[in-house]
């Protein structure tokens, strides 16, 4: 049975179970929610200017071109959704002054700059390359290597570039590239009919090279493993976030502008920009009761109390395992943290930190001394899909990065 078949089978099971639990949960939630509504001043409406790290004061920094003339700036996306590129526009009117400061030599989503233009440059001619997205195919790998060669500073921008992000979850398909391509081009409901109707027996799949009369046509090769940016090239700075906040961008901008205008040295290599040293829970204004839970709810199943810790309400929140810096924007509005800022700098594994936290959240029962391991498995099975949930953003950087096949050697 393939990876994708299993996915669908699980889905059916979940659907069958769902109606049993939902009415109960809803009734409980309604009962719980009643007193909470009377509570004054929900935190979500509080002042927002104190959230997380402050934005850097750019002040008078950008009065025109730097003394040595405009420097070159490249922005590139590898396997990314484009949200990171859009987030760069969060600098609002500053984006215009960036035009004063730098020549944007490449920005596929917004500017016209071609691979051959970059290839023709001297090594180190570009001052900063901001690269978002994981490395998924041979084109991504080629472009990031080229930009590394031509740039003084490379910034790994966004969660996909720093930790693999959602694209890296594809590493959990044991059949690697072959199984993914087969599924996408032959088995998804929308393509299966097309292939059966028009190409029965000989499905159409993209070729990486084709000899046309006019010459050879090529497509990038789809890699077996999705890699983070720093697994492919040397990276100078990291800006995590899905996407990074405007405050992080302003700090990155300030560092670069300070360097270009005033000759202030750049931060040390390897700096993560826009994070704190503590976890998200430190920034989250919700009140922690350290309650013990025995059932995990989806956010839509309960009426979320506005000022109580989400974990105490039985909602899985990755706050305890995620580094702060975002100002707990999601938990302030009642959405659990999904962990896009990655682990704290003291650990490598965000998921493992979360296992530790979640296992301690389930109460020690009175009969815990005599129950067997089967019962414990039943308790912990409340956590559905721990690998997919706790590593949703960081699988590319985890200790075990890929699915394995027993006896497959």
């Amino acid at each position: 049975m393939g990876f994708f078949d299993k996915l669908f089978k699980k889905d059916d099971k979940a659907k069958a179970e769902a109606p049993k639990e939902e009415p109960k949960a809803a009734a409980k939630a309604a009962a719980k929610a009643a007193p909470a509504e009377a509570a004054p001043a929900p935190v979500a409406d509080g002042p927002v200017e104190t959230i997380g790290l402050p934005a850097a004061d750019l002040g008078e920094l950008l009065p025109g071109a730097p003394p040595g003339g405009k420097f070159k700036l490249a922005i590139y996306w590898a396997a990314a959704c484009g949200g990171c590129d859009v987030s760069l526009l969060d600098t609002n009117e500053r984006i215009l002054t960036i035009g004063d400061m730098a020549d944007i030599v490449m920005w596929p989503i917004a500017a016209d700059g071609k691979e051959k233009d970059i290839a023709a440059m001297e090594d180190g001619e570009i001052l900063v390359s901001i690269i978002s997205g994981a490395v998924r195919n041979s084109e991504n790998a080629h472009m990031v290597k080229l930009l590394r060669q031509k740039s003084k500073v490379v910034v790994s921008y966004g969660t996909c570039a720093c930790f693999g992000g959602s694209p890296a979850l594809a590493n959990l398909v044991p059949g690697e590239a072959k199984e993914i391509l087969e599924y996408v081009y032959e088995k998804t409901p929308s393509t299966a009919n097309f292939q059966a109707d028009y190409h029965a027996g000989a499905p159409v799949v993209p070729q990486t090279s084709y000899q046309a009369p006019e010459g050879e046509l090529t497509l990038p090769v789809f890699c077996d493993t999705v890699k983070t940016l720093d697994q492919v090239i040397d990276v100078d700075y990291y800006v995590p976030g899905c996407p990074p906040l405007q405050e992080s961008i302003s700090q990155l901008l300030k560092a670069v502008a300070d360097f270009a205008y005033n000759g202030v040295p750049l931060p040390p290599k390897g700096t993560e920009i826009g994070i704190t040293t503590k976890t998200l829970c430190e920034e989250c204004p919700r009140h922690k009761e350290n309650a013990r839970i025995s059932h995990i709810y989806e956010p839509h199943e309960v009426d979320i109390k506005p000022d109580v810790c989400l974990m105490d309400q039985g909602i899985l929140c990755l706050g305890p395992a995620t580094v702060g810096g975002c100002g707990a924007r999601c938990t302030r509005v009642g959405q659990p943290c999904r962990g896009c800022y990655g682990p704290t700098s003291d650990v490598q594994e965000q998921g493992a930190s979360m296992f530790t936290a979640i296992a301690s959240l389930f109460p020690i029962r009175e009969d815990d001394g005599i129950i067997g391991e089967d019962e414990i498995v039943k308790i912990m099975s409340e956590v559905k899909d721990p690998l997919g949930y706790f590593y949703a953003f960081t699988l590319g950087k985890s200790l075990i990065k890929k699915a394995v096949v027993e006896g497959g050697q």
Partner: protein
Amino acid sequence: MADFEPRIVTFCCNWCSYAGADGAGVARLQMPTNFRIIRTMCSARVDPEFILRAFSKGADGVMVLGCHPADCHYIGGNYRARRRVALLRMVLEQYGFDPKRLKLEWVSASEGEKFQVTIVDFVNTIKALGPTPLKKEAN
């Protein structure tokens, strides 16, 4: 696969299982030499990251040994450890590992014999499963 000698990482808690292992040694009980013991103060000190790190470095199996339930030196450490191990076994299965590669067992300070039996059993289990399916990373 006849000459396959598994490499097994064993976490023993300081108060029960490590003393149990000591007891097995003092009693000169015979057991395979495929395991390396790492002593921790409590089975709950075994961070899931330690276990994943052991697997990622090529361990064929990992054992976590602690005090019997209701016997923990720190009152409730082993209850937490068993919940973490249950969760980790689910995760290992999702990765594609056989969850039998991770074992949790209770060995008290007086149970040298149980330590020996546990080791022998686990080594046999891993020998039957074969080497770790984790391939060396090709960069």
